[in-house]
């Protein structure tokens, strides 16, 4: 397997005058489950569309699995599922599998039929007649039958009810265990990704705010709580990324673990959701300096 699943260098995409994605440089190792997080309009879909050739970049370049992605090219080793799990609604599930076979060079029918049989989704059912959750599962089965080395899912559970969300997430986890591919999935809800992902990319306003191994990121950051009066003394020795006022007390997000030396201050581990929220709340400039 290749070392790097995604390599982007100064990748950018402009829509008219606004940038959907800008100065995006990142390198994601292969074999990870990558969560792409950010508010709506942060550039998640833009980045994914660039990966699968539905958009062409305005600037920069993009490599997937060591291969350059050009406009209108989709790598055979990459599978993509869009937000609506778009499939031909007048096709039967069986016909959707036939479509997958004729449209792809790599195709293993058994992967899809086994998966669908396990989920009890009949091959004779029309795609337009089954539930949204089942349709998402069909889209996933069709994607996995391509035996992708990189699976890209744009907001895979956004349109699903809570039960279908859980099912989709467990199917994804099982798929990861069975096929050992790199998975990239986007969401604007961090808690959805926490169980599944081990790598995080936070996007905001078309820029990368934070990226890295989730465990490492959590290890590198701490939250400090203390009285506002001693804030300056404490923060002088810390790399403070973000501060929040709480009625005379402050909470500081810091990077790196340094002794605080003031017993009135508490040091806490940060959870993923808190970390992401804090990064999204800070000005882009600060985040960029951290990763410069």
């Amino acid at each position, binding site marked *: 397997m290749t070392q790097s699943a995604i390599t982007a260098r100064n990748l950018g995409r402009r829509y008219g005058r606004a940038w959907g994605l800008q100065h995006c440089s990142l390198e994601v190792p292969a074999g990870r489950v990558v969560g792409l997080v950010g508010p709506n309009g942060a550039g998640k879909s833009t980045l994914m569309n660039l990966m699968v050739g*539905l*958009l062409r970049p305005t600037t920069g370049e993009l490599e997937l699995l060591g291969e350059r992605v050009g406009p209108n090219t*989709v790598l055979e080793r990459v599978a993509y599922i*869009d937000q*609506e799990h*778009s499939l031909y609604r007048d096709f039967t599930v069986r*016909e959707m599998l036939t*479509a997958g076979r*004729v449209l792809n060079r790599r195709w293993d029918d058994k992967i899809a039929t086994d998966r669908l049989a396990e989920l009890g989704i009949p091959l004779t059912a029309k795609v337009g007649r089954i539930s949204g959750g089942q349709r998402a599962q069909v889209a996933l089965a069709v994607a996995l039958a*391509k035996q992708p080395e990189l699976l890209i899912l744009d907001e895979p559970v956004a349109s699903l009810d809570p039960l279908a969300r859980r099912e989709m997430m467990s199917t994804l986890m099982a798929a990861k265990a069975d096929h050992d591919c790199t998975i990239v999935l986007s969401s604007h809800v961090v808690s959805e990704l926490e169980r599944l992902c081990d790598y995080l990319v936070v996007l905001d306003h078309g820029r990368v705010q934070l990226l890295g191994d989730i465990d490492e990121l959590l290890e590198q950051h701490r939250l400090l709580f203390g009285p506002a009066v001693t804030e300056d003394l404490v923060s002088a020795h810390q790399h403070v990324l973000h501060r929040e006022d709480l009625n005379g007390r402050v909470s500081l997000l810091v990077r790196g673990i340094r002794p605080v030396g003031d017993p009135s201050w508490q040091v806490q581990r940060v959870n993923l959701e808190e970390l992401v929220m804090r990064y999204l709340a800070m000005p882009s400039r600060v985040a960029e300096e951290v990763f410069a």
Partner: protein
Amino acid sequence: MIWMTWRQHRTTLFILAAVFLGLAAVFVAVTVSAGPVSEHPTNPTGIHELLYRLELVNEVLLPLPALIGMFLGAPLLAAEYEHRTVRYAWTQSVSRWHWLSTKLLLLGSAVVLLATAFSTTHMWWYTTAGAPHEGPFRIFNQGPLSFPAACLFAFVVGVAAGTVLRRTVAAMGLTIAGTWAASIVFVNWLRPNYMTPVTDANGASTSGGWFLSQTAVRPEDFVGVDSGGRINGLIPVTTFQPADRFWTFQVIEAGLYLGLTVACVAVAFWWVRRAVA
């Protein structure tokens, strides 16, 4: 891709085949049952008169090519955009280029076959049992070469419109407008001038040719063979395209339609290549 094309367009193809081959079967049946040409009355009667009158509908509205453009051409990409299935279709191993070219090639071939089945049987009926004395120019629009070319053109107009507009209904509208505008330009401005018309003095018969105009000139302005005919002292002069030019004209018109077809295909490809799904 062959399977995809068949699966996605088979219903429309069935309906179009039913219309075109059904009409072809009618023309064959009535021509065969009409018996030898020598026994036909000068003016069409019975079933032939009915078909003859229906002819005018086709002549004026050009419904058959427009039908192909609206129902086969316009939805080809527009429906995929509307149902967002381009996002599926264009993220598989098959390239957009291959995807579009296969569809255009297969469906375009089907259009030409169906249209040819209609236009040849129609021509056979018209020139033997329908109205053999009126000459072929009257049914020029449904001619064996120009009609399939016009159908192919209507198809790709629909495809190009759907590619650009991304809405099936809007693309259908543009297809009707486009094919109609093209036919008006062809019939009124281009077709009469494919070759220099023949002018004949004294109102001589166009003998199955295409009558364009008639004027009268004073004898002192007249150049040519004067056979002596006069209307109010003026020499009547008829301008027309002789009947034996029919096939040459068919080739020219089919060629022009094919040229427009290539242009529309180029638009569709160019647009698809740079399209954001």
